[in-house]
């Protein structure tokens, strides 16, 4: 290794890219986990096609996985890749636009034949010129033939051999970035423990890839990325969907209730259902319903009968659940609805991220139908907001919509594992006095009603979707209806006393306040930090409690000359803020490409606003 150049970097972005059958998601995940275990901070983003199997070798079938890791705090998967691993020409075609100028491209030269170039819509034999990648460092490695050579003694069929070529690429990258293989070896041994041939062959290819990098002199430099100086503690890698599911488990344990999830598989929310269905050891009841409506209505039934009830979905599913959310509002039952947002409208961009369901969450129902709306901001804090959503629902007897998105749901980062004892308590409002129980009598401070559960003797009562009086009996009285509409709204507003004050990142006074919500946090904070290093008077207010807004929101906004609301839609949060706080002028940065912001485009829009 003495001949190789060694470069120290603070952070690196690698994009693994290949056909959706090439195992790029696993390759990326293993590399990211190994980096996290090594001590780097990381942020990951899978970018995969919605087709299960698009034609092999086509641009539509390209599956990518991007990870940024570094020796400092990492908040995003990175705008552009320093290193691209391309398993076929289509990966070049699909990813050229995500490359950092002067970056390195490692590609499987075996797959760059005429047939594959044509499939990837290249018209010449030189894909790099066609994609304007001539100034890049390109390393051709015959990964397919080297993998075949590596496994020639294993007696595997051709298909199984080819399936291992991702391990060769992984080994190579681990060498380039000085990652030990121990963690990955262990993973493979556990995962394929039952078939030693599969485990053995994967490990063989992995190590051969690593050794190939070490032995070949034509390789590009190796890089050293030091461990990050992060808080001491026990860590695990966490993605947003698992964090969401686990947040509900924590809330169930804290509240002493059983957890019920009624759900229907939908991209990109399905993993929440899958994760909870693994947890029968913690008594979770997962009900894979026949459709989105049965998903939520079964959860409403479970809420009526005393469980912590959840339903999980994505945008189109939230639309189908609208009427039932209204029922939960009217019946005043504790219920959490998770919407892992994706590109819309209609089926839209199922595997791509977007924030365009905000107004649907706030208003998308018949009648005056207020709910609490929260939004998680990073993959791991999905845990916290899922927990809080459940706490609010149970303590205030109100449906809560938790918004995450595809970027958060699939993205991951290291997470300092909390202790259950350190989480706040949750006290469900279980009714106590049978004799005097009235289903819609309210706590004077919070306006929440008490929860009497079928099976509790003496508490027999009726609830339903019709307007009712205090006893739960149907009432068409005009004054009663107005009173109840107002009080249901008031009840949601009073949740504000559970909402922490809004804190800005940066100074409390300045020229520009960048305002964001939800999954854009990582990109916004990265941009604001860089701007501040350039001595710009810019701060970030990132809002997770959307309805109700934190008490001091207007106060915070008032300390800045200009406000720019950045979101992945056409301006839904900006409209909401205009409605709630019309005294301010809201500039907007909006993006609807199915992709997260880049740090650069946020900075550009702030520069522009500073000049105006």
């Amino acid at each position, binding site marked *: 290794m003495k001949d190789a150049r060694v470069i120290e970097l603070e952070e690196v972005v690698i994009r693994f890219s290949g056909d959706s059958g090439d195992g790029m998601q696993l390759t990326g995940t293993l590399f990211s986990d190994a980096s996290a275990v090594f001590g780097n901070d990381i942020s990951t983003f899978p970018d995969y096609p919605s087709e299960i199997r698009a034609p092999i070798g086509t641009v539509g079938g390209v599956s990518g996985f991007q990870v940024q890791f570094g020796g400092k705090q990492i908040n995003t998967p990175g705008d552009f890749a320093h290193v691209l691993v391309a398993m076929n020409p289509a990966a070049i075609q699909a990813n050229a636009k995500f490359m950092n100028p002067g970056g390195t491209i490692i590609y499987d030269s075996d797959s760059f034949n005429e047939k594959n170039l044509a499939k990837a819509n290249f018209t010449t034999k030189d894909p790099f010129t066609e994609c304007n990648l001539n100034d890049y460092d390109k390393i051709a490695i015959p990964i397919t033939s080297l993998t075949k050579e590596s496994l020639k003694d294993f007696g595997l069929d051709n298909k199984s051999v080819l399936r291992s070529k991702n391990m060769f690429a992984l080994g190579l990258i681990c060498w380039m970035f000085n990652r030990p293989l121990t963690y990955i070896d262990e993973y493979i041994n556990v995962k394929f423990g039952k078939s030693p041939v599969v485990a053995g062959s994967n490990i063989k290819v992995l190590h051969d890839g690593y050794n190939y990098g070490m032995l070949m002199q034509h390789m590009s430099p190796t890089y050293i990325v030091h461990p990050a100086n992060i808080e001491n503690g026990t860590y695990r890698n966490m993605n947003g969907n698992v964090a969401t599911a686990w947040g509900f488990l924590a809330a169930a344990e804290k509240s002493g209730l059983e957890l019920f999830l009624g759900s229907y598989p939908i991209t990109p929310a399905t993993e929440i259902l899958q994760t909870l269905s693994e947890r029968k050891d913690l008594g979770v009841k997962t009900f894979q319903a026949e459709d989105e409506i049965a998903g939520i209505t079964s959860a409403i039934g479970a809420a009526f009968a005393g469980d912590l009830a959840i339903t999980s979905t994505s945008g189109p599913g939230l639309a189908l659940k609208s009427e039932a959310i209204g029922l939960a509002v009217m019946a005043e039952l504790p219920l959490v609805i998770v919407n892992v947002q994706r590109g819309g409208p209609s089926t839209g961009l199922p595997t791509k991220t977007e924030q365009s369901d905000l107004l649907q969450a706030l208003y998308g129902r018949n009648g005056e139908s207020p709910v609490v709306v929260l939004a998680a901001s990073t993959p791991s804090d999905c845990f916290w907001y899922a927990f809080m959503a459940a706490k609010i629902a149970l303590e205030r007897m109100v449906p809560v919509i938790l918004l995450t998105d595809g970027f958060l749901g699939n993205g991951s980062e290291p997470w300092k594992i909390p202790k259950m004892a350190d989480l706040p308590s949750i006290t469900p409002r279980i009714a106590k006095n049978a004799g005097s129980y009235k289903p819609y009598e309210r706590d004077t401070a919070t306006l929440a009603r008490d929860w009497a559960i079928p099976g509790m003797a003496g508490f027999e009562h009726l*609830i339903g979707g019709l307007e009712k009086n205090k006893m739960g009996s149907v009432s068409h009285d005009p004054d009663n209806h107005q009173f109840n509409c107002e009080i249901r709204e008031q009840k949601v507003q009073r949740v504000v006393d559970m909402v922490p004050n809004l804190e800005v990142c940066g100074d409390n006074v300045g020229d520009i306040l960048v305002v964001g919500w939800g999954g854009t946090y990582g990109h916004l904070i990265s941009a604001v930090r860089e701007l501040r290093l350039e001595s710009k008077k810019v701060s970030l207010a990132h809002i997770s409690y959307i309805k109700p807004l934190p008490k001091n929101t207007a106060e915070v906004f008032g300390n800045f000359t200009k406000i720019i609301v950045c979101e992945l839609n056409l301006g839904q949060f900006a409209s909401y803020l205009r409605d709630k706080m019309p005294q301010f002028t809201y500039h907007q940065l909006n993006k609807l490409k199915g992709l997260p912001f880049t740090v650069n485009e946020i900075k550009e829009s702030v520069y522009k606003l500073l000049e105006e």
Partner: protein
Amino acid sequence: MVDLHYTVKDFKSENEVRWCPGCGDYAIMNAVQRAMAGMGIPHEKFAVVSGIGCSSRFPYYMSTFGFHTIHGRATAVASGVKLANPDLNVWVITGDGDAMAIGGNHFIHLIRRNIDINLILFNNKIYGLTKGQYSPTSDRGIKTKTSPFGTIEDPFVPGQLVIGARGTFFARSIDSNLKLSQSVFEGAAKHKGTSVVEVLQNCVIFNDGIHAAITDPVQRANRQLILENGRPMLFGDKNDRGIVFDKGKLKVAIIGENGITVDDILVHDATEVDPTLHMALINMHLPDMPVAFGVIRSVAAPVYDIEMVAQNEQIKQTSKIKCVDDLLNSGNIWEVTGNTPSNGSGCSKS
């Protein structure tokens, strides 16, 4: 020991019952309350869930736990109720619009899963609450407000859907026969799994007399076959008619004619797993055949809620994860020690 001897009154609520005078719903509710009073189940264990429609106002008139939900979804809500608390005795009250049209999907999936829920389907073959439009069980050709020239579609036969969805319990009753209704409700409650009871119900306002041919006081004995498990399928005002199986079909035979004796008459076996004969009984209709009533099918099969509890218990026994802390610290975790982090925005290298 708690006194579990209830009377009908114990199940009536204080709410004024607001069905039309003469509506068949009154009699059905009466039968439900009588059945519940005699089941030996604590009052607080009953939960009655309904959808939307005239019949779905039912929970308001009961003193049990009740939930008046949204159109078509009572079956799904009730599924959640039962799974959250399997100790409850859960009843779904629904109609032919609620269960067969907007709620058709939930209806068949409830039955397929075989969750231990009792469902009463009030079938008046009309939309009553919206004042007289045809329903999915309305006969072909019926003229209603939305079919002024007659419908051009065939109805569902609810029992066929139950069998098609692999139902384990199906019974049929009629509003005017309170005793029969009470007895099939008791049977439904005892059955482990989804029990569907179709009650032919008369809507006095919008579809009056729709079941009159069956209930006709003079002819009803000849037009109703009331099935009893293990007994020959006999009916008629002289009890001399019976059902025989002839050339692949059910037919009516008269005892004493053509050498037919009681021994030739089919004996009802509701517990037969093969649904062929049950389906044939469900399909019988006037004028050539009587309409079958009573418990047509009642077979044992795995019950979802019981299986769910058993599976959870089994996994709990074998898993190493006993609490959320265990889960959080399972799998790939690592320790970070010796760092003295600066505040966030810095980029200090170790």
